């Protein structure tokens, strides 16, 4: 579904991603792990089109999207969520979601008809609100939501664009165990409909969710495979997992 071929990105002298080659298969939850500064968020940026790729190629469903703009990738079915929450803070939850639904349902170069007359947008937004567990908070202004709720909305915005592949950049960042569980359950529910590339530091979540895991260290892929193989990989243990999994 998504194929990275020797994808690289440099910031000045710093190599953020170094010839990353990776394939994500339709229907899987693919986890991308690695220590801080490994280049995970840079890679998400390159895949979503926010960061230009210096060299290498990115293929999505067989088409080369390396030079495609970010919005065009969303239209092709590739959406992302952000590690640092990025929502429309002054809008209600419903308005946030309706906006994302609007983005992929026809052109918005329409200047006359009030958007509130478009029931379908808001019906679908409500359905997504229920899916992310915010059905009771639809009219709440996003800025006033609890942290965990904002993180759920963050994922909801990506889902509302009805992607075929969703890039989740640390969806559980800063969450307590209970809130994390809600996100894990959300990913479990959506995995039948959408392919997931998950960047996450919470190893419990990663090993519970992932079909396959890729380990990134200093911008390079040091291992990629099934969770059991990754857990056993000596290079991975040395570079990253270390004592954490020895117990």
């Amino acid at each position, binding site marked *: 579904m998504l194929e990275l071929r020797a994808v690289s990105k440099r910031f000045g002298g710093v190599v953020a991603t170094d010839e990353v080659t990776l394939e994500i298969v339709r229907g899987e939850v693919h986890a991308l792990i690695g220590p801080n500064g490994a280049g995970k968020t840079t890679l998400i940026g390159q895949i*979503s089109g926010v960061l230009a790729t210096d060299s290498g190629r990115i293929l999505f469903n067989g088409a080369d999207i390396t030079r495609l703009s970010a919005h065009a990738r969303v239209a092709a079915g590739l959406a992302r969520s*952000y590690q640092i929450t*990025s929502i429309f803070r*002054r*809008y209600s939850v419903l308005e946030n979601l309706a*906006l994302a639904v609007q*983005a992929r349902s026809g052109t918005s170069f*329409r*200047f006359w008809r009030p958007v509130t007359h478009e029931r379908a947008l808001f019906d679908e937004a409500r359905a997504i609100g229920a899916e992310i567990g915010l059905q009771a908070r639809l009219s709440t202004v996003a800025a006033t939501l609890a942290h965990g709720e904002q993180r759920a909305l963050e994922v909801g915005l990506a889902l509302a*664009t009805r992607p075929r592949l969703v890039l989740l950049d640390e969806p559980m960042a800063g969450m307590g165990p209970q809130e994390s569980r809600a996100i894990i359950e959300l990913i479990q529910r959506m995995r039948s409909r959408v392919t997931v590339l998950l960047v996450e530091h919470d190893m419990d979540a990663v090993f519970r969710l992932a079909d396959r895991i890729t380990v990134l260290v200093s911008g390079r892929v040091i291992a990629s495979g099934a969770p059991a193989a990754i857990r056993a990989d000596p290079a991975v243990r040395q570079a990253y997992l270390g004592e954490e999994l020895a117990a």
Partner: protein
Amino acid sequence: MRAIGVFLLLALFPLAMQAMDSMFYVSLASRILIYAIAATSLNLVLGYGGMVSFGHAAFFGAGAFVVGIMAVEGVRSAWLAWPAAVAVAALAALVIGALSLRTRGVYFIMITLAFAQMVYYIFVSLKTYGGDDGLSLPGRSTVGIGTLGNDLVWYYVVLAVLAAVLYGLHRLVHSRFGRVIAAIRENEARAEAIGFPVYRYKLACFVIAGAVGGLAGALIANQSSYVSPSLLHWIQSGTLMIMVILGGVGTLWGGVIGAAVLLGLEHLIADYRIGWLAALAPNYQDHGGLAVGIVLLAIVMLAPEGLAGLFARRRDA
């Protein structure tokens, strides 16, 4: 509902002035309404779109010059000259916007200013059409049955255009397009990440605002049958900005209120001598700008969201 009331009052205003034999105020009022249209068009980019354009006078002035030049060349029909003014302003906005919108923040402010000054110097150097001295028109535009020379008729034409512009803005703000523009102002990166081609929407917004600015320019050329290059000067852009900020950034009536207060204030200070103030500073009226500035400062301090915010029942859609 409230809007209808306001327009009813505005429609009755010249009749009252006529009864009091003070037609001068009708002329002042149409001038204010024209600036209200210009400020409203700036409010679309600046307030609703969050693009701080410091070059809006370019579109206002270009519209005025199109009408002026066409009139001098013998084309006085409003049906031809006004659409031409709108089209030229829109085209200018398309070119300036396409280049400026590649930048952000302070750079955007500076580049729009630079483009507008370039347009200013183009018209100043057009010696055939007055250059520095500006351009006198043979008269107001014609509409088929006659000219718009009558000040009373003229006032109602301007009022009708303002009503149409405000209604159009109201519709636009609540449309799909308006939602996208507001979302981009709120969080541009996220708007792109949910799939909106942000640049295209911003450019469309910029062009619409420029076109309406050109329409206001077509009207101001008719107001006194005279077009001055000062209409294009950056000070003019600043004046329009002050009107928007004063009236209320991103509010429907912000441009109207700002234009009325600023121009009304200037007129008041210049034409009415306040006895005790004159005793204190005999020539204060020669420095009207200072007095206007002090009043503006007070308003901005006391109503940081603009004067429209004082009236608003916060009812966001």
